[in-house]
């Protein structure tokens, strides 16, 4: 059984400018111990999806359809009340911009201890000791002293380590890492990703890695889901996806991804901009940008996720 | 429909209170314009036989100690009160905005000097400063306006300074500079129009404060000359009658005063919603 299953999830934002259909009919699954990458341009709905899973969506967000099952428990339905207990304990999340994602006026050790005393059923003192242990575990030197530091006194990489310590404090089964390396320098990025990978393997933790960096996903993930304008357009194992991208968008994305041996000048951006998600949208939201777009693409509803071979799913009438 | 109008309509629909405030504001303006035509009695005519009548069919708001109709006085007072607050706010805007813009634009010594002036005014207890100014210059509407303007000036100067500072390096300013505009022209034609919207919010909030300030001055006897109807002075006069049971003398002008200030304040909120949806407070 999969640890997490997202089924036909649709979500919209009610705003002053109109209703934004941020997610539409999104289905995904994450197995135990698996690392799933979710890639796409910014604004494609990756973060919205992860927030929906964690149940920390904006107040304006409204799930109109679908289910999110964690170990079989529907987090949007019957399991809603359990969500409070799950968050931070069974599933947790780390964010981009670690320096602002931590409480600026609370010592980091305390912030970790807060999580522990909430979920792990330990006393305040025990929580403190465990917090220092967690800091050591994420390879922060001199953890005793660092526990008493404030986020602004630490580097971005250090902050991200703290965030990881925070997320993993209660040994969750699922970690959602939302652009965990954005804003960090290259060496730190690698160290952070190594850390996440190591810790995940150690505890057979499932990971969802959300990133706009296809190269990073290629390096770290077992499977990859490509998102575009609130749709999942393609899902496949990493090797399969890179070898045989079937969706034109995926192909474009891969083409823009830096590879060893290709100079920056040769990279081409994905042409066109993401469509406005308010108002009427074509069935295939990529159609306005798609070079392969034909009249027939608009004929009849688009069947989601055509299962090709080898668990390779794509949402396109004219796949490559 | 153009987007601005649509946005305004949206804000109004979203926030019924703002709609109410706009309606109230319109009503106040109408009263200020046409008040003397609507008032059922001469607001200045005394009728000592009818002194201190409780609200009744002939006198909806009752009569005061000289038998004057309170409803008429409340209505007619609208114009003066609106005039006082508009004039005071306009004046403090006219004083504060240029000072703030200069401080924010030139920085350095200019900024420090203007900052010093503003700090000095702020270091006074503002209401007491207003009292002092009115007492020193003499008891007149014009001096109330001056006093209110002076004590409100720092708020405009500070705001204008901050807003200008934030826009000093903005693209449109750079563009204007490159196309050979002098400082004065940039400030007047580019900076000023851009900082106007946030300043307007401050203006509407200050309108209410200006009325309260004038009322407070009236209460301690530094106000409008009798027998001119003015809300503050009417409350002050009426306050002497509360304990003896003639509550209406103070209550109705007090309510009018409150409603006006209330409308102005909510209007400020509404304007802020319209101008900057993100910063709704």
């Amino acid at each position, binding site marked *: 059984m999969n640890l997490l299953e997202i089924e036909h999830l649709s979500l919209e934002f009610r705003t002053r400018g109109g209703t934004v259909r941020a997610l539409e009919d999104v289905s995904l699954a994450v197995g135990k111990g698996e690392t799933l990458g979710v890639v796409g341009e910014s604004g494609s709905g990756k973060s919205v999806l992860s927030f929906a899973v*964690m149940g*920390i969506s904006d107040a304006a967000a409204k799930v109109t359809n679908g289910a999110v099952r964690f170990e079989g428990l529907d987090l949007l339905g019957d399991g809603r009340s359990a969500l409070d*207990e799950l*968050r*931070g304990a069974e599933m*947790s*999340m780390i964010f981009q*911009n670690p320096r*602002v*994602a*931590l*409480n*600026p*006026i*609370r010592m980091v050790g305390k912030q970790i201890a*807060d*999580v522990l005393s*909430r*979920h792990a059923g330990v006393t305040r003192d025990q929580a403190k000791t465990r917090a220092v242990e967690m800091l050591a575990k994420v390879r922060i030197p001199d953890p005793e002293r660092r526990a008493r530091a*404030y986020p*602004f*006194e630490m580097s971005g990489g250090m902050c991200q380590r703290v965030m990881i310590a925070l*997320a993993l404090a209660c040994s969750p089964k699922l970690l959602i890492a939302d652009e965990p390396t954005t804003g960090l320098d290259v060496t730190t990025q690698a160290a952070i990703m190594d850390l996440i990978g190591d810790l995940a393997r150690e505890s057979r933790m499932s990971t969802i890695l959300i990133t706009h960096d296809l190269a990073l996903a290629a390096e770290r993930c077992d499977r990859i889901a490509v998102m575009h304008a609130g749709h999942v357009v393609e899902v496949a194992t990493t090797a399969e996806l890179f070898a045989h991208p079937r969706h034109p968008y995926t192909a474009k994305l891969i083409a823009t991804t830096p590879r060893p041996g290709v100079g920056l000048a040769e990279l081409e951006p994905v042409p066109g901009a993401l469509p406005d998600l308010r108002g009427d949208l074509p069935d295939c939201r990529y159609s306005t940008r798609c070079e392969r777009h034909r009249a027939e693409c608009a004929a009849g509803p688009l069947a989601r996720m055509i299962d090709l071979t080898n668990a390779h799913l794509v949402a396109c009438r004219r796949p490559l | 429909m153009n987007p601005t109008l649509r946005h305004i309509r949206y804000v109004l629909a*979203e*926030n019924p209170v703002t709609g109410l405030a706009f309606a109230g504001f319109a009503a106040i303006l109408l009263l200020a314009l046409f008040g003397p035509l609507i008032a059922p009695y001469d607001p200045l005519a005394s009728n000592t036989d009818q002194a201190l009548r409780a609200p009744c069919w002939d006198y909806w708001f009752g009569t005061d100690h000289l038998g004057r109709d309170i409803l008429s006085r409340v209505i007619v007072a609208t114009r003066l009160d609106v005039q006082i607050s508009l004039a005071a706010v306009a004046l403090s805007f006219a004083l504060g905005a240029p000072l703030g813009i200069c401080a924010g634009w030139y920085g350095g010594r200019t900024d420090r000097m203007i900052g*010093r002036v503003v*700090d*000095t005014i702020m*270091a*006074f*207890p*503002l*209401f*007491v400063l207003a*009292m*002092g100014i009115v*007492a*020193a210059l003499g008891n007149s509407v014009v001096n109330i306006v001056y006093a209110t303007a002076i004590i409100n000036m720092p708020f405009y100067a500070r705001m204008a300074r901050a807003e200008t500072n934030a826009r000093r390096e903005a693209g449109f300013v750079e563009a204007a500079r490159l196309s050979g505009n002098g400082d004065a022209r940039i400030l007047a034609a580019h900076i000023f129009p851009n900082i106007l919207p946030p300043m307007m919010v401050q203006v509407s909030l200050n309108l*209410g404060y200006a009325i*309260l300030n004038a*009322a*407070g001055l009236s*209460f*301690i*006897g530094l106000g409008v000359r009798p027998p001119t109807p003015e809300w503050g002075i009417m*409350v002050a006069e009426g*306050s002497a009658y*509360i*304990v003896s049971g003639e509550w209406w003398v*103070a209550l109705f002008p*007090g309510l009018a005063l*409150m*409603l006006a*200030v*209330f409308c102005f*304040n*909510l209007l400020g*909120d509404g304007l802020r919603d319209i101008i900057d949806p993100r910063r*709704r*407070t």
Partner: protein
Amino acid sequence: MIAHLILRRLLGAIPSLVAVVVVTFMLTRALPGDPAAYFAGPAATPQAIEEIRHKLGLDKSLPLQFVDYLGDLARGEFGQSLTTGQPVAQDILARLPASVELTLAGLILALIVALPLGVAAATRPGSWIDHLARVVSTAGVSLPVFFTGLLLVYVFYYLLGWAPAPMGRLDLFTSAPRTITGFFLIDSLLTGEFATFRAAAAQLTLPALTLALFSVAPLARMTRASMLGVLSSDFVRTARANGLSRGTVLVTYALRNALLPVVTTLGMVFSFLLGANVLVEKVFSWPGIGSYAIEALVASDYAPVQGFILTMAVLYVTLNLLIDVLYGLIDPRVRIEA
């Protein structure tokens, strides 16, 4: 570090204080009226008035009077109040605690209402509670304080008889506690006079409530705005993602951060309230420095007006310092980077 900050702030405040002294002097001399004529009493001849003018030093030229004034200030002399007949410094010292106690009580009362109101409004923006909070707090700030005060007296003292008579800090049968801080509430507790405490608290309730009504609005608005900002910030999202309880998220994470701008507003509101005090003290016969200043102003009694304004300016500077310190206590960034 904080000491360094305080010192810098104090030095920075000196030019403002000097300007306040000069402006105050000019303002008081511009007041109409002739104190000499006023205090010469009934039936005074011009000659008698001249005598008094000389006695008061008012026959000297303005610059000379200013030099005299500066000399007095340097010696710590604020002059004599003609209205109460006492040295101004002594009057102000005796009355300042009354004003400050009242203002603080009003402020604390306002905070008790404003913080939860602001938080509630921020957690449900656009809801009925948000609108209610907005309308209620705006209504409070729309009322002239003297009107609110009178109304409260009428209803709670005259009609219902719940509140004690509005005649100052204590009723006639309770004697003031031994002066330690000058705040009756604190002094009576320190000396263990609980009856006095009750009496003082009872007298304080209505005027403090009047001030609180006036100051709920800015505090609640700022709390709401600041909470809205903080609640949508990344670290609150982190806290929520970590499953921290609603209370912890709201109070320990969001509110503490949201307090920073509220503290700044608090300072502004406090100095505003000191001004509003002038009117409230008049309504409640509160023996504070506000009512003292009004009487002096109306009598063109220079010394108390000057002393009062100077005291207020110093208070304002001190207040800003306190806010800086408070800021440092809440925000480690200020503390460590200072």
